């Protein structure tokens, strides 16, 4: 199964503070471990919400709102996409995420829908559109 691992933003990440050398080194080692275990499919860190944008939908209206956004706890700082056997395996990996400063943080795990889970709602036409969008991104992934 695939699991999306969502790393919640912190005051530091929202302030745009770069992680310490120590954390960077430990994170690099952890990422390498994930790759070597055949678990890592994808993963990136995100810029603070001050660089982000929200688009609010209401009826036919589309309202564009510039960041930053206030509710830090609900924001994301980064994500991983993992291939694991079970949620329990994903939990074990999450417990190993380095946290050298001991600061408070929250990581949320969500199982990823397979296309089959959408049933008839996800028609071939929608899939085609989605594929076109995906293949417009470079194939260097």
């Amino acid at each position: 199964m695939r699991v999306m691992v969502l790393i919640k933003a912190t005051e530091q990440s929202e302030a745009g503070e770069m992680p310490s050398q120590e954390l960077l080194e430990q994170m690099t080692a952890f990422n390498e471990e994930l790759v070597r275990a055949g678990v890592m499919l994808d993963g990136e860190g995100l810029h603070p919400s001050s660089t982000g944008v929200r688009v609010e939908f209401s009826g036919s209206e589309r309202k564009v709102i510039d960041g930053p956004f206030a509710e830090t706890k609900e924001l994301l700082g980064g994500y991983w996409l993992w291939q694991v056997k079970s949620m329990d395996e994903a939990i074990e990996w999450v417990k190993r995420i380095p946290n050298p400063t001991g600061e408070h943080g929250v990581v949320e795990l969500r199982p990823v829908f397979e296309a089959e889970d959408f049933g008839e709602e996800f028609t071939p036409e929608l899939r085609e559109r989605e594929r076109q969008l995906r293949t417009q991104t470079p194939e260097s992934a």
Partner: protein
Amino acid sequence: MAGRDVTRTIEAVWRIESARLIAGVAHQVRDVALAEDLAQEALVAALEQWPESGVPDNPGAWLMATAKHRGIDRLRRAEVHQRKIEELGREAELRSPADDDLAAGADDPFDDDLLRLIFTACHPLLPTNARVALTLRLLCGLTTREIARAYLSSESAVAQRIVRAKRTLSAARVPFAVPGRRELNERLASVLEVVYLIFNEGYSATAGERLIRPELMEEALRLGRILAELLPRQAEVHGLVALMELQASRTRARISPSGNQVLLLDQDRSRWDWLLVGRGLAALERAYATGGPIGPYTLQAGIAACHARARAAEDTDWERIVALYDGLAQLMPSPVVELNRAIAVGMAFGPQAALEIVNRLQEEPALDSYHLLPTVRGDLLEKLGRPAEARAEFERAARLTPNSRQRVALLDRAAACASQR
């Protein structure tokens, strides 16, 4: 943690740690069978103690320390102690310089042990099904019951196969080592064969109700991805990973809602898994970037990549596929490869050129009762406007196919040819 069962945590830790645990202990005791016993003992100890004591901060280190302590106890107790020490000396001599050279891509000593474990479990001395069972058990951490379920076999049969395999390894005194350079190609081929066999059993199950077994595909992909990190300079390892990622990317499109198999050119490409396509193409690039010799896996991945790069079936670069099949036919000449090459030639250069290849194959005894030969020949004859001959071929193919759904489809085509006259 509240509410989540400790047993499930232990299972997850086992999933992550077992291969490294067995490999690390095998390094110490120089005996894979004994190492697995000791690792299992450590697991039992965890199941007894962790529900009381809580899960330790570093569960992998706890299991390793426990297993190694038990190993020392056993060696002390057993009279084989002396023999083991002698063996250690003997193996230090046996370890060729290539061992270190090969593993140089991995700077973690545990990775070296993992690699040794993989080569031992896939030793060509063992029959294929024993290699497969031992690999799933030692490297994927599957229980005997899980292996039996995946292969629709009985638990006792799988258990026996594993016991026999371990005995064979012990009796032959197979060293716990990465093969030297001279042996490497043959031994690596054996490893890759096992991984691809596991994948294929998942991709097109040979028995049972289900057409695919995703759990086996996932185990094989994981093994392949691990191997690619352990042996980053071996082109064929990346080639195999690329082939598996690209094939796995089509899983969802291969089966129609009514449960029939959908041929590649008829598949709804929007249902392909584009994350896996991207990974497969990247793995193929890594294979070529090694600069090392390209083998059959890389060539097959190259063919799969031609299909993956085509947004629609009619965009397929058939001339490139023909060139790749030419390479494949040289590396491993076989009538089945030749038949596939003929199909590609037909798509690239027209039915007449393909028919000439197929006609030569008709004398091939290996394809005597292979339904795809008359199917392909019928298809080419139909395209060449020779419906009477095409009809005879489709009827022959219908008699040969073991699959009842295919038989119906072939008889339909035969009937369509009959009405063309």
